[in-house]
């Protein structure tokens, strides 16, 4: 039995400890906001926060999250910070097919929560593990920059 905090709620699972966190989230908890892209930790589409730090949920065996706090896009989308990010992503036109966006938003959350005033270079570094094949990244960078500026005091 593994117990952890998922989007603010204490949960438990009987799934085997070498189950990947992405599979547990999607299959057992029906949290399908986190997508599986490469499954090798190279694309960032499955990004979640574990104890406030960005993680690739495809690489995390659930045995390692005993007692941890996990936040997925499904939980994060209920926050004030998400509302702002959502507005800024729209305003900057930072979405095309949308497949990378749940991971990009979680990476954005990690960047801004650690550094409310990131430079462009820090933003690019922060999303460097997240691949996007449509936007060309610049609009996503603009969206995060906008969220930093508009969100004074929120981060």
């Amino acid at each position, binding site marked *: 039995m593994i117990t952890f905090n998922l989007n603010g709620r204490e949960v438990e699972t009987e799934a085997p400890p070498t189950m990947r966190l992405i599979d547990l989230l999607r299959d057992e908890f029906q949290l399908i906001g986190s997508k599986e892209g490469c499954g090798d930790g190279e694309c960032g589409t499955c990004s979640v926060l574990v104890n406030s*730090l960005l993680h690739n949920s495809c690489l995390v065996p659930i045995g390692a999250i005993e007692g941890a706090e996990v936040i997925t896009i499904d939980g994060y989308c209920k926050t004030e910070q998400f509302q702002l990010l959502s507005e800024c992503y729209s305003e900057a036109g930072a979405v095309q097919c949308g497949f990378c966006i749940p991971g990009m938003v979680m990476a954005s959350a990690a960047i801004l929560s650690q550094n409310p005033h990131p430079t462009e270079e820090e933003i690019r570094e922060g999303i460097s*593990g997240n691949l996007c094949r449509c936007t060309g990244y610049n609009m996503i960078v603009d969206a995060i920059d906008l969220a930093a500026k508009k969100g004074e005091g929120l981060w």
Partner: protein
Amino acid sequence: MVIKTNTSYRYKRLEETLSRLSKEECQIIAGGTDVMVQHKSPRGTPAKFDKPIVFIDQLKELKQVYKMNHDIHIGACCTYSEMMKHPLIPGILKKAIKEIAAPAIRNRGTIGGNICNASPAGDTLPLLYIYNAKVRLVSAKGERMIEIQDFIQGPRKVNRLNDEIVREIILPEVHEDLTHFVFEKVANRRADAIAKISFAGLLRRDEGRISDARFAFGAVGPTIVRSMDIEKKLLSAAFPLDNKFIDGIVADFECLLKPIDDGRSTAVYRKTVALHLLRHFLEMY
């Protein structure tokens, strides 16, 4: 044989973990960033291991960084992100860590895992080799120390007994003033790419002459390539080095580097670029 994928242990203390390892052979998982990819199974099914799992990422005893007798001790389960933030970690190692993967991997992957994975392209390895790093192993029976080049024996092959855990990586003191370090990684993408070639170099000068020279190449052989014999040739050489001398050193390494063709690169490319990195370092510093 029944594959016991369900058996796993996650202890609060190192002592209990070592006691478990003394009783049965287990698969150790630190961050899991390499091991979970190697043991990937179809979507929705747990990663398959033929041994019980011991998780060690939570062990506080393996997360300390401290200085003792001028040497820097780095707990094997320090993640790359933790090392990036720690004031005792040398700047050049931080620079190398910046080239490792991306934030999400750096939040999980550990230095001990990078060493035990023993990939010829392991990102921290060339620098650890030129630091003359030592690996401190611990088991229920006691401890031992081993030089990193003796610990790593080949791809995914290390000199670790089944009941042992890598506890620390020790960086013996390097007088950093007057010492030039470089770390170069060549890869397809800035983030999350495995190195085609990596190179670490160290040169120290005293009164216009070289007093210490160390070079290590990654991904050009089954283990990191370093040669004490070639390094010795540089001692007492006048600085800057003349071109003929540099040609000789590059030629020495040309015989030593034995890269392979694989999905990431060709042998010819690897060797050419590796030697260019060496030449550039010898000419510039």
